[in-house]
């Protein structure tokens, strides 16, 4: 029991330290950036009195250490401050933007895993054949073609030329303001409201950005799966299994793959965390109001409260997914227990 408590305390301390480190670095970046946040707050042309009053209200007249101290105290009270640009509490902004990213990232990682893992396994099993080479080229394209090119081509082909996919945005105008905002995840909100047309519309709008993001992530997952699988297939237990005359299916999926699964959990967790940071380019081309856009626009305006709030959230996501991966690890690999 004491051992468990100690482990928990150690875990909390390491999470706390990670987050504190994140806050310090982000805060310092914000303060050394050569952009005056006042311009974002009151505009370039505001008279000097207004500028000075805003500087005072925002606490920017104080020494940097004091500013940091105030921020941390505020943070410990659960207050992420207000955004200069949107004038809303950062927490409510994040509550609006993050679900859009969550929806996209979750769908993308699921699609990427469902396609990427079997492809990786297949490439490993057929190592050196044309199948392996084809998968390698497909993955290489996924990694090397810029996302905005893929996104624009996708819009051009499926939306503009073929007319089989909806245009940019999360919803068609017909459904604007129709689904009550409960979780912010449009598909879930549509299900809660029982509005199946809205759900279908939301899903249709997700197809293109999800496929683009999934393609990018899939390329990584496939390559990693292939590498892990090649390693596993060289294992003595696989040779033994083959020598026993087991079917190829059984050798690959029952004997080799479970060992790869353990490593894949980490890959999937990191891929998912990366997607949850928000994919700025995809969000921009598809006008998807997600965390990536919010973070970028805030950063460009030196609006540091949202930047720090979003960075903390991303940090938490990473820590959370790492912990989750560790837990899954323990379930999959008896040696870690």
């Amino acid at each position, binding site marked *: 029991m004491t051992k468990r408590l100690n482990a928990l305390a150690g875990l909390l301390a390491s999470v706390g330290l990670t987050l504190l480190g994140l806050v310090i670095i982000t805060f310092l970046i914000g303060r050394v*950036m*050569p*952009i*005056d946040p006042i*311009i*974002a707050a*009151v*505009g*370039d*042309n*505001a*008279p*000097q*009195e*207004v500028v000075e*009053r805003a500087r005072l209200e925002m606490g920017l007249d104080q020494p940097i250490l004091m500013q940091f101290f105030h921020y941390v105290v505020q943070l410990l009270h659960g207050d992420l401050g207000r955004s200069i*640009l*949107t*004038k*809303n509490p950062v927490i409510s*902004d994040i509550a*609006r*933007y993050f679900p859009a990213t969550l929806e996209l990232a979750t769908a993308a990682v699921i699609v990427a895993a469902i396609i990427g893992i079997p492809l990786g396994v297949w490439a490993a099993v057929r190592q050196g054949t044309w199948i392996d080479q084809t998968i390698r080229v497909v993955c290489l394209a996924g990694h090397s073609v810029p996302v905005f090119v893929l996104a*624009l081509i996708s*819009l*051009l082909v499926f*939306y*503009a030329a073929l*007319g*089989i*996919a*909806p*245009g*940019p*945005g*999360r919803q*068609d*105008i*017909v459904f*604007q*303001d129709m689904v009550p905002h409960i979780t912010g995840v449009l598909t879930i909100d549509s299900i809660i409201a029982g509005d199946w047309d809205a759900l*279908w*519309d939301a899903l*249709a709008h997700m*197809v293109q950005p999800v496929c683009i993001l999934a393609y990018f992530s899939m390329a990584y997952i496939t390559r990693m799966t292939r590498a892990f699988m090649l390693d596993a297939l060289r294992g003595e237990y696989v040779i033994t299994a083959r020598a026993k005359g087991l079917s190829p299916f059984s050798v690959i999926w029952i004997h080799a793959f479970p060992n790869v699964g353990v490593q894949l959990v980490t890959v999937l967790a990191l891929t998912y965390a990366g997607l949850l940071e928000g994919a700025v380019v995809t969000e*921009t*081309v*598809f*006008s998807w*109001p997600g965390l990536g*856009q*919010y973070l970028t*626009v805030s950063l*460009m*305006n*030196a609006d540091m409260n949202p930047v720090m709030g979003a960075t903390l959230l991303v940090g938490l996501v990473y820590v959370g997914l790492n912990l989750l991966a560790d837990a899954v690890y323990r379930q999959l690999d008896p040696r870690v227990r």
Partner: protein
Amino acid sequence: MLNRRTFLASSAAASFFSYTGLSAAFADTPKDILVVAQQLDNMTSLDPHEGFEAVGSEISSNIYQKLVKANLDKPSEIDGDLAASWEANADGKTFTFKLKKDAKFASGSPVTAEDVAFSLQRPVIMNKSPAFIINQFGFTKDNVAERIKATDPHTLVIVTAEPTSSSFLLYCLSANVASVVEKKAVLEKAQGDDLGNGWLRQNSAGSGEWTLRAWKPSESVMLDANPHRQTKGNVKRIILRHIVDPSAQLLMLQKGDADVARNLTTEQLRVIKDDANYNLVRKGVASLMVISMNQKNPILAKPQVQQAIKWALDYQGIQKNVIPLTHVVHQSFLPEGFPGEIKDTPFQKDVAKAKALLAEAGHPDGFEIAMDHYSAQPYPDIAQTIQANLAEIGIKVKLLSAENRQVLTKMRARQHELILTAWGSDYFDPNTNSEQFCVNTDNSDDARNRTLAWRCSWQNKDFADRSEAALKERDPAKRIALYEQIQRDMMANSPFALMFQAVMTAACRKNVSGVRLGTLSDSHSYTGASKA
């Protein structure tokens, strides 16, 4: 027989075909809804007495009316909006406005002089960014209730601190900050002493043609027709959709998912400029591209160097090759479409003349200098052409590209040498730019009034006095003539190389009418918007 393979194939096909069936839902937009694809980021508030950025101002100006409005076709004239008539006393300090009697707020309540008085007092008391436009007339939190008063339900009296040019006052009253809000509706929603600011940021209480139905930041703004509006277009709702990427805006316009695209660049405009399916509404807007030369640099402080730079630039070439559809050559500080505008363009590329001026300044072999510019297109392309132009006369320019706000921050700290930026006007009166380009009363680093002239450390008493005199001139025609002369004299004798004026385009599908652009963002209008 259904095996695993055929089952998988048929389910894949089924999902594909059911997805294509959805395309019927992506047809043209409904007749009574106007869909506008536009970049809506950087919008902070739809309270007209607080918001001061372009997109927010444009939306507010479609929701609210003012006492007067500038005439879009004849900038030197001012029309009544809520005011039926107005007159100034002989002392030039007391102005009386008579209101039209038929104006109604969206709630159905009539617009009274009390609402107008409250609406002009409110920005002064709140003192947010745009308040200085009204505060120029001597109003303060303490005296504004006395100086702006309703004397009866249809009469409003404004008393200024100093004798004031009526045209200056009227132009300032045409700005968004003078928008009329419904006093009762706003005060009912007030929290503490915020005068309803928290509520009005995301709601509306106006008498303009449109009312705010919903605003989802970074997604959309929805405007519904004011049931009491007097203009009758067939559009009942406008949906402004936040579409960041101009290419995506063009695709939506072509597919009929958007009726209007607002942020197309030269690249996209080239595709549709000769296409009869689209109507391009174009207007020169109050955004001037200018190279400012910091006078802290002793070389740039020499008048001959300033002139040499102006004569070395290939204005026509840049316009024709880099920005043919988004800018026109403009070399004076009042944009076309403004009262007092002049269209003179005396400077053109003359390398020999520029070299001679440089030699006269004591730099026959040129010099090295840095130029900051925005990193967003078209600035990098223009900066590179400027670099090549100046290289022809021996000036070696080092280009420093940075994010818009970063460039402005550097300029406000007066740390630049040459800097290529855009300057937008604050309100529809010549003084807005005249003061910025001419006046710098205190050149110290902690000065209160940090005009463009201050940012370049440039002081010229003659121009400052003449700008002040023009501001106070009470005869409107003489006033305009004074500004025209200041601009002509300043072109050759200032550290500002004015180059281009931005031209905005609203690309509309051919069945759309009633979309109008103004010189300032608060005069872009959807009044009477219709779809055939």
